[in-house]
């Protein structure tokens, strides 16, 4: 059997994918595992091939990333010894930069490399563009409403104003935070902490299967270590919201990782949630706990799911789960899957490629 949509070109080498069995992902994170559970076909298109709809609004993703980054900057500056006020100031300055989009023109002298030679001197930092490889043409504020329909614009609570408000209110609320960020042995705060562990299972290529991910923050509360995971939502944080994290792929993975991958096992995961409304931001923290039995069950289930992914990789075919098409806000590939398999490639022009790689290390602030 062949893939439903042919590959656009030879994929770049990704750290999390097998070099010997095309399409086999040996390092899994909660995003790739969760997508596979939703629909193997969606997994193939979005994770294996990396397709993203060109018109898909990245409002929630960018808002969440900026929020996370601002708090990460604050944690780093506090760890560096700055006061609450100065650390907040650094976070807000960084946030302001993050909320701006730049249009740049490549430097002709260095062809965008940042290095150039002048006369007989060997190639060094390009003096024309000061080593940046490009010139700033213009800078404008990110427009969170870009790409939204007029109705969605009316409803939208994620704006630059609410982003700044949320960060300031959060830092003020938790100035004397009962959750103290752990400082690692190298002096860095335990924020955006990457983890990976060997599951002990083997993939169809005979290699080990890894679980990996990034924890927002590892803290101590009453001298006990916990993982703190930040979430933004427009929902009111009621029991319905807190219940949505159990069962939950990501929380179960973090709990398992916290017990397996760390020298000192963590107690569990605390969801550090914020409701973003037009007139307020409301913060709530709640633990989402797993018993040993539940973690063992989740690992057993995960072994089953990844085994299934291995089988699909071997046969090169990923079936649709047509019960998931209207869930999770509607699948971005529904328009493609509605077409006859023979013509689907034509409709992929609406998508661009952005490859997902769980083992790729995230940048530091």
């Amino acid at each position: 059997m062949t893939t439903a949509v042919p590959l656009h070109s030879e994929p770049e080498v990704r750290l999390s994918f097998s070099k010997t069995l095309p399409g086999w992902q040996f390092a899994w994170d909660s995003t790739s595992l969760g997508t596979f559970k939703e629909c193997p076909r969606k997994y193939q298109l979005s994770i294996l091939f990396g397709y993203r709809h060109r018109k898909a609004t990245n409002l929630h993703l960018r808002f969440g990333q900026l929020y996370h980054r601002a708090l990460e900057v604050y944690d780093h500056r506090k760890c560096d010894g700055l006061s609450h006020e100065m650390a907040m100031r650094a976070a807000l300055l960084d946030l302001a930069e993050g909320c701006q989009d730049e249009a740049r023109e490549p430097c002709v002298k260095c062809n965008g490399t940042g290095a150039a030679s002048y006369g007989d001197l060997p190639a060094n930092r390009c003096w024309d563009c000061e080593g940046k490889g490009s010139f700033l043409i213009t800078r404008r504020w990110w427009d969170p409403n870009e790409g939204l329909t007029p109705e969605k614009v009316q409803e939208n609570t994620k704006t630059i104003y609410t982003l700044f408000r949320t960060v300031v209110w959060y830092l003020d609320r938790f100035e004397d935070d009962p959750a103290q960020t752990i400082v690692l042995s190298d002096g860095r705060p335990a924020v955006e902490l990457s983890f990976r562990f060997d599951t002990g299972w083997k993939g169809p290529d005979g290699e080990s299967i890894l679980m990996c991910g990034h924890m927002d923050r590892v803290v101590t509360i009453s001298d006990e270590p916990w993982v703190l995971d930040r979430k933004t939502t427009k929902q009111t944080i009621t029991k319905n919201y807190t219940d949505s994290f159990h069962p939950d792929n990501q929380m179960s993975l973090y709990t398992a990782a916290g017990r397996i991958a760390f020298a000192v096992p963590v107690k569990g995961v605390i969801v550090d949630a914020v409701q973003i409304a037009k007139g307020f931001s409301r913060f709530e923290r709640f633990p989402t706990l797993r018993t040993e039995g539940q973690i063992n069950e989740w690992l057993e289930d995960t072994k089953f799911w990844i085994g299934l992914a291995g089988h699909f990789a071997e046969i090169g075919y990923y079936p649709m789960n047509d019960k998931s098409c209207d869930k999770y806000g509607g699948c971005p590939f529904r328009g493609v899957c509605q077409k006859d398999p023979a013509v689907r490639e034509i409709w992929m022009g609406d998508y661009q490629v952005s490859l997902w790689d769980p083992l790729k290390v995230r940048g530091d602030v």
Partner: protein
Amino acid sequence: MAPIKSKGEASKILMIGANGSGKTGSLVSLARAGYNIRVLDFDNGAEILYQLTKGEPEVAARFDVETHTDDYKSQAGVVQPVTPLKGFANGMKVLDNWPGFGNINTWGPDTVLVLDSMTMMGKFIMNHILFLNAHLGQNPQLQHWGAAMSIQEDVMARLYSPTVKCHVIVMAHITFLEPEGEAVRKAYPSALGNKLPPKIGSYFNSTLHVGVKGSGANQRRVISTKSTNTIDLKTPAPGLVKDEYPIETGLADYFKDLHGPLKAA
């Protein structure tokens, strides 16, 4: 078809009774029967055990009590917990590593883990949630109740798990609620909120009530196993156990009826 047979599981008992009814003191009969009794004490009410075993050093030696409570202070007329909070967090640490006896998962059927009481533990859980949300000393809001109830239920689930092979007794005070669809108020174990008390019994294979029967000179404290109109009780061996036991020997007799005499190690 597999025939039904006993798995020989440990007793997981929910023991409910009003404050001062004799729940904690009833444990002495188990110690006299040879069981090791390890009490995770949230009520700070273990003094009765010392008083009842004063003349019996070998019985007293079978008790090990870990008391963990939150401290409180009064400031400007407001009483609020002192941080760092000790009650719930330290209590849970002890379940993982009881001083001198290790993780509770390593204990056997000659040992009884007692949690006294679930009601007070609930209060410390709520303090923990409020502390987490920088709300300590303030009234809990709706979302705090949900989070605290989940934690309390998770603790019960942990104790009910087959990985905990020792016997477990959880003490609870009583609360009266009118369950959905019923016109009568019934007595339930006092847990957080209104939704948790009617279902917390699911985490136990026995629910016993400690109360007073009779009046005047005939008044006596008993441990009941049989449900009434106002309180739902349960036992895995109806007909094999008695409807009620005297409090002085009740727990030991109940254990003997369920499991036989304790075998020497």
